[in-house]
């Protein structure tokens, strides 16, 4: 099997299958789920049975149904936030690395300042000024995350911009945007793609820690991270409730990263062969 002109490795096939299965399951949640998101169907933390085959949660709601509905919130939020933070972070990072040192200094300081303020204080400040709606949630996490992407992409791009081929492009009189896109981006891609695979997972969990602060998804809507949190104490008496959403996060993370690894390897090969 081939994709984008490259042979699909076994790992990548598994990764794509996991992602695809997740997308199908959560897109058709309304038809697949045996119960509604907020329906109380039985006892608290009832073990898995024929009807509720992943058991019930801390209020007696069907775990499987909540997993499907929660996936809609979690996956779409995490994708949106990660995409936003990467576009923002990469553009800023490359700009800092390829233009003059004043812009670099200004952007780096700005990011340093944002990163240096403890997150708890920052989150509470945002909360008190902007409130607790979903757009605020997306914006806040995206901006916080983009600072980390910025540092990484700047560090990688710095190394590349001093290479002979970029210098050559500069001397040819190529435009900044062209240099970023054609010379810097392809060479900086591997660490950035790897970072994307992890950020995605961190974002799933970060949404949960913020909903703990009251910023984020409103009950009874589910999200995977909060489902782990709400059911955590069940672990003490051997309940599987918190492991179910955790496994969902783990599975998707592994799937995404298998695909990331595939990108990494075709990227390496492509350039290696061309050299």
């Amino acid at each position, binding site marked *: 099997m081939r994709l984008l002109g490259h042979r699909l490795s076994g790992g990548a096939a598994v990764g794509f299958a996991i992602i695809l299965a997740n997308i199908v399951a959560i897109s058709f949640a309304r038809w697949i789920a045996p119960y509604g998101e*907020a*329906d*109380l169907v039985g006892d*608290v933390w009832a073990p898995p049975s024929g009807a509720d085959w992943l058991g019930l949660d*801390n*209020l*007696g709601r069907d775990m499987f149904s909540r997993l499907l509905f929660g996936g809609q919130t979690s996956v779409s939020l995490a994708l949106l936030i990660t995409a936003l933070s990467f576009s923002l972070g990469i553009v800023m990072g490359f700009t800092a690395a390829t233009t003059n040192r004043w812009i670099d200094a200004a952007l780096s300081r700005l990011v340093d300042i944002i990163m240096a303020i403890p997150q708890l204080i920052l989150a*509470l400040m945002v*909360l008190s000024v902007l409130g*607790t709606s979903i757009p605020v949630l997306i914006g806040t996490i995206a901006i916080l995350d983009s600072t980390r992407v910025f540092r990484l992409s700047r560090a990688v791009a710095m190394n590349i911009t001093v290479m002979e081929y970029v210098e050559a492009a500069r001397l040819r009189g190529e435009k900044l945007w062209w240099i970023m896109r054609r010379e810097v981006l392809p060479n900086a891609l591997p660490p950035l793609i790897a970072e994307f695979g992890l950020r995605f997972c961190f974002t799933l969990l970060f949404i949960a820690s913020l*909903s703990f*602060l*009251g*910023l984020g998804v*409103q*009950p*009874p809507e589910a999200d995977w991270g909060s489902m782990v949190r709400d059911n*955590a*104490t*069940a672990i*003490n*008496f051997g309940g599987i409730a918190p492991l179910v959403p955790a496994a969902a996060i783990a599975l998707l993370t592994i799937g995404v990263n298998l695909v990331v690894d595939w990108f990494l390897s075709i990227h390496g090969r492509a350039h290696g062969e061309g050299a």
Partner: protein
Amino acid sequence: MAEWDYLKTALAAGRIGRREFMSRAAALGVSAALADSVLAGAAFAAETPKKGGHLILGLNGAASGDSLDPATYTATFAQVLGQQLYNTLTEVDEKVKVQPALAESWEGKPGAKEWIFKLRKGVTFHNGKTLTAADVVYSLNHHRAKDSKSAAKALLASISEIKASAPDEVTITLESGNADMPYIVADYHLGIGPEGTKFDGVGTGCYILESFEPGVRARTKINPNKWRSDRGFVESVETLAINDTTARVNALISGSAHLINRVDPKTVGLLKNNKKVVVHEIAGAAHYTFPMRCDMAPFDNKDFRLAMKYAIDREAIVKTVLLGHGKVGNDQPIATFDPYYAADIPQYKFDPDKAKFHLKKSGFSGQVVLTVSDGAFTGAVDAAQLFQASAGKAGITLLIDRVPADGYWDNVWLKKPFCASYWDGRPTADQMLTVVYKSDAPWNESFWKRPDFDKLLIEARAELDPAKRKQMYHDLELMIHDDSGNIIPMFNNTIDAGASKVKGFVPTPTLQMSGYRATEKVWLEA
């Protein structure tokens, strides 16, 4: 229940064994939890306390800003540490009866406006000074001063004068009569320290402070000159701050702590299976509330309030949020074990039809927003979701607005039209009603204002005839039940737990940790 009392005496006297006690208790319909706790309490009745040993307490509610000044106590860690160091004039015992402590006896003048407390002789502070009436006056006035930050200030508001009428006698004069004065001075804020000091831990308590790291731990050791021989058995105590519920349970199971407070109802079953651990559970006076502001639409409409009261499934909330470790509430704050509990008030039940009837009568047809946070009480967000589900069945659209725990009491409580709140038990019915339901009470969380209620409340306070007083409280509770904006879905059990080698722990219904005084009551079996 005479039979139940008989059973308990028989057990204490050793006439029946544990197994027989449990089976007969079950036959009487006594809950296993209650029977268990009696059993735990009775097991030592025949034993003599053992002296010595090192006790480790694991308590929640500790913060790095904690201080030893009793005026600042707001959470368990400081409250329990404080009772190791300080004594109050009186104490409330396990049966919610007032008992002598630093005051040996007391007497109320007719009309209950003047109270005379006789002090115990020969009591010394940790610094060697002897206790006098001047110390008591100084310590009580600490809370009454104009710039006092004490949470007990309101409690003492009706006092017009406190004076040392003799070296060992304190006279308290009130603006209006209050038959409950001896209970009021038992409040844990009102610890007695030596005159002129800054309340830095020097008191008359059974334990002397050795070191205190706020938010981490405190170490205390036995007071060689303690005034009471029936308390203070362990040699040294370490009070550890363990704010995380799971961490406390783990500390107890792994032996890193001997006594812990506030056990999550969800882990009680697990602990009961553990031989090395005893769960101390008792039906409590603490309760959770959903106050609806009677001065804001749509809650200013009595029918709408009634619709809400019928639209909440209390049984389901007790079963799910407390896992049965609690009692269903009836929208009035007096607990069943209180002598002034009005037993004949009909219990609200989840009734979608009645709710729909009152909803229609109220003419309201929109949605209401319930603002909650787990900072209000543990499980508040869960309880709100159950409320949402049952209200939906009654045709009421309830939206949940979850907000941060941080700043909850500042920004939400007493401000939003509909939110969640909790109340710890108060030793007397009057205190509970005065603090939350009197029209001008600063914590009147449902903004319910009834002049006839206020009038009767003040009359009841000074009434010394028990039968008349009981009827008055009955009427007061009925008014709250029928009309007020407070929904009280449940009373939660007080659940502490200890290692099985910790003996002498008797739970009290009003406060955790045996009335915050577990430290000096327990001993360690080898």
